């Protein structure tokens, strides 16, 4: 971890079944959350008269609860719904998911050395939970890029299963809030942050990110406080970098 990687931009990562399996196991608790939210999305989609097959395809290609709900609301406001403005849908999804651009950028050093099929294939099922899990594992020394795919699959497959069940038998959907599942991502982020923040330098990142997130939260809630925190934190990391012997991980 100490050698400079200026030339290649990349670590030499491997991509093995054992890494995929490790990530898949690590992602199981988060999979419970995506299953229940998948149920909820399936139900909402059916109520907007989107068929089971259509709901499932949407979950397969969009794989983002907030983006899909936003897209469904655009679709259901159009009559007939098939006339919905495609640009409006595209822009809506990109605004809701803007934070993924940042997440993808941060995976570059890790995933650059595996084949494009593996890196872009893994990124296709990038989500908040598995990215946080993977970046924490990476900071702890995980170098197998399969971990990233595996943790993604642990959340993606229950998302599809949840959508299918929710759209088919929507009336059985439990209340995610009563189960505390709305808190699942926050809980994983908090635990990973407490475990990750070790050096004195990290205090600056934490303080700046919190300030950035809370400031933006006042203006636009949703994904944007996360984007602000990530960018502010990256700037602090960039500015506070010190050569050799510093605490940079």
């Amino acid at each position: 971890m100490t050698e400079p990687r200026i030339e290649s931009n990349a670590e030499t990562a491997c991509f093995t079944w054992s890494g995929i399996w490790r990530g898949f196991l690590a992602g199981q608790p988060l999979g419970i959350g995506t299953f229940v939210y998948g149920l909820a999305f399936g139900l909402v989609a059916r109520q907007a008269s989107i068929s089971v097959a259509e709901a499932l395809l949407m979950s397969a290609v969009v794989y983002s609860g907030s983006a899909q709900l936003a897209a469904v609301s655009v679709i259901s406001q159009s009559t007939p719904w098939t006339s919905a403005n495609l640009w409006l849908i595209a822009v809506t999804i990109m605004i809701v998911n803007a934070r993924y651009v940042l997440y993808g950028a941060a995976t570059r050093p890790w995933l650059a050395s595996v084949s494009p099929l593996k890196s872009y294939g893994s990124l296709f099922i990038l989500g908040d939970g598995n990215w946080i899990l993977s970046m924490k594992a990476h900071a702890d020394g995980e170098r197998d890029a399969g971990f990233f795919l595996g943790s993604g699959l642990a959340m993606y497959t229950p998302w599809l299963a949840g959508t299918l069940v929710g759209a088919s038998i929507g009336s059985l959907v439990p209340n995610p809030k009563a189960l505390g599942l709305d808190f699942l991502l926050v809980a994983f982020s908090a635990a990973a942050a407490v475990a990750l923040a070790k050096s004195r330098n990290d205090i600056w990142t934490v303080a700046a990110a919190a300030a950035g997130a809370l400031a933006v939260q006042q203006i636009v809630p949703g994904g944007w406080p996360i984007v602000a925190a990530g960018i502010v934190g990256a700037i602090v990391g960039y500015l506070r970098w010190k050569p050799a012997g510093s605490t940079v991980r």
Partner: protein
Amino acid sequence: MTLDAAFIPLLLTMAAASFLCRASGFWLMRFVPVTPRVQAALNATPLAVMVGIVAPAAAHGNLPEIAGLGAIFIAVRLNGGDVLAAIVGVAVLAAVRTAGL
């Protein structure tokens, strides 16, 4: 299982917009030389994003959220591992909510 043919353009649009978000950051970083300074910026991003997810929830949270976050902090510090700590936090939050506090 019915599929309206008019749904296909909608689906392709949604697929393209979604994948663009997930792939563009990774792709763009091809053209950014990763100097140690840029590496430090990328290394700081995960912690910053985690804080960005937690801070609004903590600031707007009521007793269940605060209790859950407190439990997580203690559980990690007691060396329980971060996954276990997260599950403990969700359980504490659900319990406090169920208790109606």
